C-alpha cells in the first residue's frame, strides 16, 4: 500500500474512532435535550394510558390520525438502508461505501420507532396480545406484524454483519480510551475477527445472502403496510397502485432522511474527506428520480379517480384540492415534489446545503403526505351523517415529538458508541480504485493523492 493511501486510511480510522474516544459538552447538551423531548412524550403517553384514547382527537368516525401517519412515515424511511446498502451493493455502486452504515442504522432505528406507533395507537398496549391470540391470517394487520418484525430482524443482522470488522478495529485501536465494559462489548461483537481469508469469505457470504433476501423483504413490508389501507373499500384507499406507491414513497423519504443524517454526522464528526459532495449529488439524483416517480403516481392515482368519480371520491378530491386540506396538498405537491426536483436537477442549485434543504422539504412533506393518505379518507362519511373533523390534541403532538426525539436519540447514541462509517469497506474500495494508480506513481508515473472532494 502506498504512503498516501496508508495516510488516508489512518485518517479514516481516526475519524471513525474519534466519536468513540471522546465526548464533547455538545453531545451531552444535545442528548439532554432529546431526553427531555422523549420524556415529555412519555408523560403524554402516561396521560393517554390513564385517560384512554379519549384524550386524543380520534373518535369513532376518524379512528386513525397522526400515530398511524407516523407509523407509515417511519416504516417508509426505513427503506433508506435497503436501497443504499442492499440494492446499491447488488449493483456494485462503489460510491455507496462511506454511507452504507448510516443507511443501515437509519433502517433499524426507523423500524424500531415505527413499530411503536401502532402500539401507541392501540390505546391499551395489553391488547397487542389479542393480535396473536385471535389474529386472522386473512387480516393485513397480522401480515403487517409479521412483515415488520421480519424486516427488523433482517435489518439488524444486515447492520451487524458489516460492523464486525469495525468492531475489531475498535477492539484493537481504542485502548484505554474505552472503558473495560466497552472493550469487552467490542471484543464480543467482533467475534474474533482478524481479517483472515476464511473469515472474509464467510463475512462476504453472509452479507451476500442478507443483501439478496433483504430487498424483497423490504418491498413486501411497505406493500403490506399499504394493504392495510388498500384492502378496504374506503374512498381514497381502495386503490390497486398503493403497493408500488408506498414503496416508491418509502424509498423517496428514506433517501431524504439519509441525506439529512449524513449532513449532520459529516459535520459533527468531520467526515468531509470521506463523505463528499459526490455522495450528496448522487443521492440527490436518486431523490430527484423518485420525485418524478412520485409525481407519476400522484397523477395516476388522482386522474383516474377524478375521471370516474366513484361514490365518495368526489368528496375526497374536493377536500384534498379545494377544501380543508388544500393547503397541505398543494404544499406537498410544490414543496415536497416540485421544489426538491428543481434543486437537484438544476446545476447551479446542486450544492450540499441546498440538496440537504431539498431533503428536509421532502422529509417534512412526505410526513404530510402520509397524513393526507390517512385522515381525509376517514372523513368521507360512510353513512348519512355529518363529516367529522380531526385536529390532533396536545397528547398526540407530544407523543409525535417524543417519537422523533427517540429516533434522533437512538441515532445519536449509536454514533457515539459505534463507527458511523464502514471503514473496512471504504479501505477495500480505495485499494481497488486507487492502489493501482498509486503503485504506478511509485514506479515513476506522477499521480495526485486522493482528493478529499471525491470527484
Amino acid at each position, binding site marked *: 500500500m502506498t504512503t498516501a493511501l496508508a495516510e488516508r486510511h489512518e485518517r479514516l480510522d481516526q475519524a471513525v474512532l474519534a466519536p468513540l474516544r471522546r465526548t464533547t459538552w455538545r453531545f451531552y447538551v444535545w442528548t439532554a435535550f432529546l431526553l427531555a423531548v422523549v420524556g415529555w412524550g412519555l408523560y403524554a403517553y402516561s396521560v393517554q394510558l390513564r385517560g384512554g384514547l379519549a384524550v386524543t382527537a380520534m373518535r369513532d368516525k376518524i379512528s386513525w390520525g397522526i400515530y398511524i401517519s407516523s407509523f407509515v412515515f417511519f416504516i417508509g424511511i426505513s427503506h433508506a438502508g435497503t436501497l443504499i446498502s442492499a440494492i446499491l451493493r447488488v449493483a456494485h455502486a462503489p460510491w455507496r461505501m462511506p454511507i452504507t452504515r448510516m443507511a443501515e442504522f437509519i433502517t433499524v432505528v426507523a423500524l424500531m420507532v415505527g413499530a411503536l406507533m401502532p402500539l401507541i395507537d392501540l390505546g391499551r398496549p395489553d391488547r397487542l396480545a389479542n393480535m396473536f391470540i385471535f389474529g386472522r*391470517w*386473512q387480516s393485513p394487520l397480522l*401480515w403487517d406484524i*409479521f412483515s415488520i418484525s*421480519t424486516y427488523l*430482524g*433482517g435489518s439488524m*443482522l444486515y447492520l451487524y*454483519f458489516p460492523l*464486525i470488522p469495525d468492531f475489531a478495529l475498535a477492539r484493537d485501536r481504542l485502548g484505554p480510551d474505552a472503558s473495560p465494559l466497552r472493550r469487552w462489548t467490542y471484543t464480543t461483537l467482533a*467475534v*474474533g*475477527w*482478524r*481479517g*483472515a*481469508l*476464511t*473469515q472474509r469469505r*464467510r*463475512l462476504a*457470504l*453472509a452479507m451476500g*445472502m*442478507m443483501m439478496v*433476501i433483504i430487498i424483497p*423483504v423490504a418491498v413486501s413490508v411497505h406493500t403490506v403496510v399499504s394493504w392495510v389501507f388498500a384492502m378496504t373499500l374506503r374512498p381514497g384507499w381502495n386503490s390497486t397502485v398503493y403497493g408500488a406507491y408506498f414503496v416508491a414513497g418509502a424509498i423517496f423519504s428514506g433517501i431524504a432522511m439519509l441525506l439529512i443524517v449524513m449532513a449532520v454526522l459529516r459535520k459533527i464528526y468531520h467526515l468531509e474527506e470521506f463523505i463528499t459532495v459526490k455522495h450528496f449529488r448522487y443521492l440527490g439524483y436518486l431523490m430527484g428520480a423518485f420525485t418524478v416517480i412520485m409525481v407519476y403516481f400522484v397523477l395516476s392515482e388522482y386522474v383516474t379517480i377524478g375521471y370516474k368519480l366513484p361514490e365518495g371520491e368526489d368528496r375526497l378530491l374536493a377536500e384534498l384540492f379545494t377544501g380543508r386540506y388544500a393547503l397541505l396538498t398543494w404544499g406537498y405537491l410544490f414543496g415536497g415534489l416540485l421544489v426538491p426536483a428543481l434543486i437537484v436537477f438544476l446545476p447551479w442549485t446542486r450544492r450540499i446545503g441546498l440538496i440537504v434543504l431539498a431533503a428536509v422539504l421532502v422529509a417534512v412533506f412526505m410526513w404530510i403526505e402520509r397524513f393526507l393518505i390517512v385522515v381525509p379518507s376517514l372523513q368521507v362519511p360512510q353513512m348519512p351523517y355529518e363529516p367529522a373533523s380531526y385536529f390532533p390534541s396536545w397528547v398526540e403532538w407530544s407523543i409525535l415529538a417524543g417519537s422523533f426525539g427517540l429516533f434522533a436519540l437512538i441515532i445519536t447514541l449509536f454514533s457515539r458508541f459505534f463507527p458511523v462509517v464502514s471503514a473496512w469497506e471504504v479501505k477495500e474500495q480505495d485499494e481497488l480504485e486507487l492502489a493501482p494508480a498509486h503503485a504506478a506513481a511509485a514506479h515513476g508515473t506522477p499521480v495526485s493523492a486522493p482528493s478529499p472532494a471525491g470527484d
Partner: protein
Amino acid sequence: MNTEKGPKWITVGPVLLLALAMSMLSAGPALAQENRAPTVLTVAAADEFDLGQSGLIIATLTDKTGKPIAGARVTYVTPAEFAGAVAEVDLGESETDENGQARLVYQFRTEGRIQIVARYFGNERYQPVQSSVAVTVGGTAQLYQPKAGLQIPVFGSWTLAAILLGVWSVYFVSLAVVWGIARRPAGGEV
C-alpha cells in the same frame, strides 16, 4: 206528554232492520266458518339438530275424518325476539302433496330451543289451523364464510407461514455462517 202518537213500528222498524243487518254481517263469517270443514294439522321434525345442519320439517294436513288435503299452502314461521321486539320470522312455505304432507327443508342457523309453527290459512272449504313443534339446535359451527380475502389453493394460510419460515431460515443460516468467523484461522492465515 207526547201528543203525537204515530204507530211504534215507524221508529222501531229501522232500528230492528239495522240490528238484523249488523248481526248478519258479524255472524256471516261465523256462519261461513261453521260451513267450512274443520282441519287437523300436525308438524313433525327431529328433536335435535346441529348448528348449520339442514333439517326436514313435515306438516300433515287432513280433515276431521283423517282424509289428506292436497294442494294446500302451509306457511312455516318461528317466533323470535330482537332488541326487545317480538315477531314471527318466516322460514318458508310449501304445498301439501296427495298425502296431505307439506315438506320444508330448513338450515338451522341459530342455536337453542326453536319453536316452529306451521300454519294453514284455510279456504272456502276448510278452516284455518296451526300447529307447532319444538326442536333443539346445538353446536359451535362457524357458519359465515366470507368470500373476500386471500384464498390460496391447497396451502391456504400455510403459504404465509412457509414464506416466513423461508426468510427466517436464511437469517439463521447467515448467522451461522458469521458465527464461524469466531473460529481461529488455521495457521494464522491472513
